[in-house]
């Protein structure tokens, strides 16, 4: 580990000013991702700005939204009453991630900004466009069993050279992508509010950037807008072992149902793209219809038409489709 400076700001303004003049400075929250990256030599910040003393831990419901401070712990969010009752999908997704010990350290801000688990990204001896732009994508033609099957916007367009086949590892972000979420950030140029769908990036250009956060910007909170999905939402995570593994594929489904019909539908996929993959057309396809396995199968297969398998992950096409069907059935309450 390279020597670095350790700072402990007391206010948001102080934190931002510490980061402002130094592109190599990094905020540290729970440290469960950043410290690993430092140990492996992937991140070598000159300055570590420990934000744990900032007043960003609050979880509260106000007006039409749930506001969760960036330093709220994953475990606390998952069990908070307002979250469990109003946004159970988020609670489920959080509990599907990592382990109890990690969730007790991990923060919402850190979870949003955690980096990919692609093994080429993690190994300094191997090429990786995300870690070292222009060095090539190791996963292309390599071991890519866990890699992406959806690429550019809406699934069209090819995989470009100098790109990245890695997937985003977060479970929480899949749930946040399915519903309406705003990421609140503060930086040298003041406060900004970014829609979740625009916060994380696809990899077609500049795969070294995971997010659209500006230099020195600090995430202060997320806001999840109220919705009518609580009764019919489900987070399904498919993984290589029962717990403590990143998703091969995950599905966040949120349905609004009434009188045996679906009136609003949201679906996002994890483990399939550089960011959680929102299935935009699903609402149109399900609206007004009665749930059935056959309908869900048709809907799932429709989205998979725009997927493209790599050498090692052809199974993900069928798995993703099956996982969507399974999650939709559970959310709709049909067997």
């Amino acid at each position, binding site marked *: 580990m*390279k020597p670095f400076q350790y700072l402990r700001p007391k206010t948001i303004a102080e934190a931002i000013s510490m980061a402002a003049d130094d592109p190599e400075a990094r905020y540290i929250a729970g440290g469960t991702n950043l410290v690993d990256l430092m140990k492996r030599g992937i991140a070598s910040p000159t300055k570590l700005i420990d934000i744990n003393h900032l007043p960003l831990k609050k979880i509260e419901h106000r007006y039409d939204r749930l506001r969760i401070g960036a330093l709220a712990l994953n475990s606390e969010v998952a069990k908070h009453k307002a979250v469990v009752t109003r946004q159970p999908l988020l609670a489920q997704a959080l509990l599907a991630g990592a382990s109890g010990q990690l969730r007790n350290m991990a923060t919402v801000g850190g979870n949003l900004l955690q980096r990919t688990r692609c093994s080429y990204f993690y190994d300094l*001896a191997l090429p990786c466009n995300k870690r070292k732009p222009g060095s090539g994508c190791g996963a292309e033609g390599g*071991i890519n069993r866990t890699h992406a099957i959806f690429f550019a916007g809406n699934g069209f367009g090819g995989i470009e050279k100098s790109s990245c086949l890695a997937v985003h590892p977060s479970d929480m972000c899949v749930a946040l992508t399915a519903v309406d979420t705003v990421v609140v950030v503060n930086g040298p140029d003041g406060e900004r509010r970014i829609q979740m769908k625009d916060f994380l990036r696809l990899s077609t250009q500049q795969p070294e950037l995971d997010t659209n956060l500006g230099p020195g910007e600090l995430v202060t909170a997320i806001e999840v807008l109220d919705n009518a999905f609580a009764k019919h939402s489900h987070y*399904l995570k498919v*993984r290589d072992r029962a717990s403590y593994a990143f998703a091969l594929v995950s599905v966040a489904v949120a349905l609004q149902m009434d009188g045996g019909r679906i009136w609003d539908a949201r679906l996002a996929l994890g483990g399939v793209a550089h960011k959680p993959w929102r299935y935009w057309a699903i609402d149109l396809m399900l609206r007004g219809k009665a749930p059935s396995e056959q309908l869900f199968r048709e809907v799932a297969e429709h989205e998979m038409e725009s997927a493209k398998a790599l050498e090692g992950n052809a199974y993900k096409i069928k*798995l993703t489709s099956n*996982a969507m069907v*399974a999650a939709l059935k559970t959310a709709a309450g049909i067997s």
Partner: protein
Amino acid sequence: MKKQLLDNASDTSLDRVDGAVKVTGTATYSAEYLVPGLVHAVLVTSTIAKGSITAIESREAEAVPGVLAVISHLNAITVPGWPERKQPAERVPVGTALRVFYDPLIYFDGQPVAMVVAGTREQAVHAASLVRVTYQQETHQTHFEKNIGKAGVALNVQRSKNSPFQDYQRGEAAKSENTEVRIEAEYTIPTQHHQPLEPHAIIAVWEADDKLTVYDKNQGVKSAQGQLAQAFKLPRENVQVISKYIGGAFGSGIRVWPHTMAAVMAAKQLKRPVKLVLGREQMFTSVGYRPYTVQKINIGATKDGRLIGIVHEGTGQTSMYEEHLERTVLASRTLYACPHVATRYRLLPLDVNTPTWMRGPGDATGMFALESAMDELAFALKMDPLEFRLKNYAESDPERNLPWSAKSLRECYELGAEKFRWNNRMQAPRSVTQNGLLMGYGMASSLYGFHRHPSKVRAVIQADGSVIVQSATMDIGPGTGTAMTRIAAKVLGVNAKKIRFELGHSALPDAPGQNGSATIPSVGSAVHVACEALKTRLVALAREMSERFKSGGQVVVRNGQVYGSVDDKDGVSYADILKYHHLNELEVTEESKSGAERDQYSMYSFGCHFVEVLVSPLTGEVRVTRVVTCADVGAIINYKTARSQSIGGVVGGIGMALMEHSEMDHRFGRYVTTDFAGYHIPVHADIPPIEVYYIDKPDVHVNPIGSKGLGEIAIVGVAAAIANAVFHATGKRVRELPITPDKLV
């Protein structure tokens, strides 16, 4: 938990004698010894799989504050036991262990090429990241299937006519090909790593120019002592190896590996004690692994289920510089009564590091194939898999034509089947569902050869009647000290609390390393013999004290006292015996080893596993929901620790079957699964209730304690039982481990 122990025997088990120090963090592991003046070493490893080093740029690393040296083949000391370096460097002949920092040649990716030594580990880690190594790269071959044509009979086997790895044949080889019902299939197990939670670590201390002490994580202090003494041309007694507590090993500590030599060399060169702890990613290329192995089985039976022939061929990978041989195909000769059997075993040398033994070496691999094939054949015969096995039960060893020393496999099958409720099994696959999940039952047999090596034990009784028992044996986790204490307590009639068993130090009496499930059979026997001898001496001394103890065979010992007979109310305590004779202590050292019985009997441990799985038909996720494991290993010494061994074996088998897979990117010849996020082992949520049963009948022919090995047999066969259950649940046969969702969806 307690209840389960009691199902099978009244539970008088000893708790682990080292349990308290381990759970309170006061047990000292190899990396934790406080040695004055200690400095820290970190390895730099190669990033190519074949070629040679052309330059090592270390100036930047040397400039880091605290750095004492950057050691490589350019400046390392000469190890006296190694041949002089050749100019130019030449590749070594097969059979040569890797010599670290010896010459610029690279044999595999991850090979140590340099080492930074610094005042703190952090300084060393940072400096190591600054060492720039340049190579002349050569084309490497790491891909098993692409090179399978180069596989051949090991040179070692070619040279030795009596090698068990020679091609074998009984009856007519081709018989299985003409049988009425026949299966021919290929089974693959990928490279799997031991990955004990404690990484390998060493502290090397040169007490004087010719005196070395190492605190090292290994599985055999005596063999490590011998190998280090030989390398540095020292008398054995000038080298001491200490390895008292080990956080798991599973075979990774059987050899003295290059990193151990590197630390010892650095300590010599710098005249400072040196500590080296391997990083998790370095554990993938430093301490061996279970080799990638492909097996073909051709097995046939008559329509009514009598086995006619088995042809079992296996090819395992090895390195370019050493041949690692294991028992992959041997079980097919022994397990079933089958008239026509042929086995062939081949090695495929690749540009990788040398594999080594990993729990159930060879047999865990081979039995995955054999017991999967048996299941496939049972299905083809429309027979119950257990009934099929019983029908082909071997009443004597069909390979050596010898009686078994003891075999209660039939009782294992019966007990296991009853406890599992195997009778409820529907014959047709994919016929049972539970909450939308497919349910399947599977079973497999298990066997492991009996190993016993000469062992010495010293037993000492002290003035206060407490007992010290010593042997240079090891405890890599099974609870050796606990079992040995139990044996000593029983023989001497002394409360276990008054006995201290010492192990893990090369100055103690000679004992084998902990491998091949040989510790209880070997060292346990020696403890028994030594304690018997001590008891005899104590009784003899008691006789000199009083007429009461003269009554021939009547004398008994209990509660640390000698009694004239079983009914005798007054005894004389061991302490009083010593006091009466003005003795501070009384000591015996005894050796125990096998004799002529080895040629009269065929000796094996046996067992079986029954497994229930649930498989998601949509996602292909497999969860093991119930396991019953049953073993016949002769007498059980201590139920509690034995049970933990069996559970650990099943857990390892679940990992082997469903998760463990060291994946390599062959373009680089480099593993890409080098952390616990990429290399999956089971977590608690993957482990169902595991019921453990033993037949617990002493095998009177094997040794004085009637006990055979348990460590390996606990895992052998588990992967097959799981694969068989998955087939039963889904109708899909997976012949390539691990059984991950992608293979079932």
